[in-house]
Structures are given as structure tokens and as C-alpha cells.
């Protein structure tokens, strides 16, 4: 285990440097990209703070749609298997398996919960709009 500052604290330091030091002292393209880079770091802080909880919610939601599966312990394995499970879900939708009423409603509720989590990381302002 590394010493403090932890990952979040270091990301905050770099984001602060981009926003407070680089932005005001640059113009045009460079300034724009400094803003984008700073926003990316803030997004990563939100992602790191919520990833465990969000992956668990997505996993449980897919359990209800695709059938229960044991979640691997490590985050990396969970991510890889989530991709596979979403691939299965995509294939099922493409084949018409999500056209019927009860499944479709459950599917939309799941997708809404997942998208809410994803946007809470990538663009919280959009969710705040309603």
C-alpha cells in the first residue's frame, strides 16, 4: 500500500494545477485542452470513488435479466465479465428477445439505473437538469 497522498488526493492536485495555473496562462487550443484534461481528472476522481458500488449494481441488475452468476473478487475480472454479460444482453436484444412486455420493463429499469451511475461519473450536470 502506498503512502498518502492517495490517488484521489494526487488527482486533485494535478487537476488544481491545470485549472488554477495552466488555464489562466494559456490561450486557444492549449487552454481548451487544459480544460478538457482537468475535467477528465475530476471525472476519474468520481469514477474511483464509486466504481465498486456501480459495478456491483450493474452485476446485480444483469443477474435479474440474464440469470444469476458469481461475481469474481477482483475488479479487473469483474469488468471483463461485465463486458461479456453486456455482450450477451446486446445479442439478446438484437435477436428480438427484449421485445416483450415484462422483460422489456425490467430491462429499461436496469439500463436507467446503469446510465444514472455512468452519467453521475461522466456528466453529473446532465442528471441535475432532470
Amino acid at each position: 500500500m502506498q503512502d498518502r497522498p492517495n490517488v484521489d488526493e494526487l488527482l486533485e492536485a494535478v487537476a488544481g494545477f491545470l485549472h488554477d495555473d495552466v488555464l489562466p496562462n494559456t490561450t486557444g487550443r492549449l487552454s481548451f485542452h487544459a480544460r478538457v484534461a482537468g475535467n477528465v481528472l475530476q471525472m476519474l476522481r468520481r469514477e474511483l470513488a464509486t466504481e465498486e458500488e456501480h459495478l456491483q449494481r450493474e452485476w446485480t441488475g444483469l443477474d435479474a435479466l440474464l440469470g444469476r452468476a458469481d461475481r469474481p473478487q477482483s475488479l479487473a475480472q469483474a469488468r471483463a465479465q461485465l463486458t461479456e454479460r453486456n455482450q450477451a444482453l446486446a445479442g439478446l436484444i438484437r435477436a428480438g428477445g427484449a421485445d416483450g412486455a415484462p422483460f422489456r420493463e425490467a430491462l429499461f429499469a436496469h439500463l436507467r439505473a446503469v446510465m444514472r451511475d455512468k452519467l453521475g461519473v461522466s456528466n453529473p450536470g446532465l442528471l441535475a437538469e432532470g
Partner: protein
Amino acid sequence: MDATTVREGLTLFVADKAGADEVQIENLARLSGGASRETWSFDARISRGGTVETIEAIFRCDPIPGQPTMPGRELEYHLIKAAWDNGVVVPEPLWDGDDRFGVKFFTMRRVPGETLGGRLVRGEQYTAARELVPQQLAQSLARIHHVAAAGHPELARLPGPEPGKSPALAELDHYEQAYRQAAPNPHPIFELAFRWCHQNLPDVPQSVLVHGDYRLGNFIFGEEGLRGVIDWELAHWGDPMEDIGWLAVRSWRFGGKQPMAGVGDREAFFRAYEAAGGLPVDRERIRFWELYGNLRWGVITITQAVTYLSGRSKSVELASIGRRTAETEWELLNLLEGKGD
């Protein structure tokens, strides 16, 4: 092209076209980059029979000789000319290019103003413009849709729907293929949207000239409102409702509360469009094109992120666009559930 090539070529070209004794090209500046198109700004001082006139203009050209181009790009001058002749608010076309640069080019009069969507939506100096722009957009769109093929034979080369097929089908197939080839992750919401689009393909009673990219970002505006509709390279023959649906796509609202370009009410826009002589508004077809438009933009965000992932670009901007795909999925969920605004 480099500035010297452009300056030397333009000096002779403008002299030819204007019948001038002498031409001086001043204030030549490259406006935008990008692999698809070069845009240059210049002033031409034209001396003719003892008088001097200065024309403020734009030079648009393809960047690379011999590259396959598309009809809308080759015909951009003719499109702007047809729009101008029909009373659309566009920059005045000056002269279509010839062979001297080895790439397709044309010139038009320069229209000063703002194009950034967020400025129209939020800028304090654009309070009056926000009131006027929706109606002006509706009026220009109605006039675009009335450009007659008969009056502009060149435009017959623009792509159009295959006989007996929905005008949406070819495009839908194109973006679905791009998605299936490029997407690094599965997107269940895009699957729902592709399926919905295939099940709701619109038939179109009458094929008209469609701008193809009619949205905030492609409009020059000032404090008094719309000054010019630009970027005609995606123009084609098709469903007039396509332009209306695309104008309502969430990403082109730039955070604005209103659906039409972020600043216009939906029904008021429809009324203004019909009052200006537009085709009969079909809300179902508009819904199709709006949903399809969000899907199309969603697929484009993936292909842009893939330019980064494949190593073709190192841009942090392109990389981060991959995280904007979720916004289009959120909007698609709303539209699929009939919860759009």
C-alpha cells in the same frame, strides 16, 4: 495547402473572375483544420478601370488532391448558390473553383459573427437573437426544402433514396456497420435504438433537398439573429423532416432548455416552418429522425474515441469524447420510452 500557394492561386483566380487589372490578396488566414476541409479567410483588393474595391471572402477547399470526395462537397458552391437564389440566409456565393489548385474549391463572401452554440444559448448579448433565431431557422429551412431539382441540374448528382426504399435505410445501415466494426464495448441501448429504427423506418411522400447537418454550430449568428447557414457538404435528397429532427437532437442544444437548437419551442418552430411554406409537419417522422439523430451522434462519439484508441490521434479531446457516448444513450432511453421533450 500552404499560404503561399493559396495566395498566388487566389490572386490569379480572382483577377480572372472579376475581370480585374490587378488583385492583391490580403489578411490571408487559415480558419479551421481537420482532415475533411480547409477554410481560409482573405480580403481581395480588386483594381478595375481606376477604381478599387475590397471583397471580404472565404476560400474553401479539399485538403488533398486525388482523394475521393463526396458529391455534397464537390457541389457546395452550387448548393449555396441554389440556397441563395431561394432566399435562404446563406453567405453570398462568389465564384466556383476551376482546376488551378488540383483540388475542388470555391469562394464565398465572408459573414462575420459567432458560431459557437453555447454562446447563443447563454450569451447575454444574444437575448434578442434567442427570440428571433428559431423563426429565422424555420424560414430558411422551408426555403431549402423548396429548392427545385429542375432549376439546379447539378444537384441531381447528390445522393438520394433508392426507389421504393426508405430514405433512412442506407444511412441507418452505414452507421450500424460503423458501430459494429468500431465499438470497443457492447451498448445494449444502441441495440434497442437500432431495432426501433428498423421497425419504424419512415416512408416519405416527397423527396426534397435536405441540408443534412442543420444544427447549432453550423449557423453564423449575431446580436440581431441568423446571418448564415453554412457547411453544406452533407446535403442530399430525402425527407424534409430529417433536418427538423436533427435540429432537436439533445447534443445540439448545448445545454439550452428548449428543444429546437436549444432556444426554440417545438410547436412554435413547426408553425413557423409551415407558415414559411415548408412541407406538412409529420411529428412521427420527426420523432424517428430525432431518435435516429441521437443514435447517429452516439456512434460518431465512439468512432472519434476509436481514433484515439487506435493511435491515429493523441488528442485528449478525442479520447474524452468516448465518455460522452453515455449522454446519447440516456437521451435514447428517454426517447424510446416516449419521455422526450
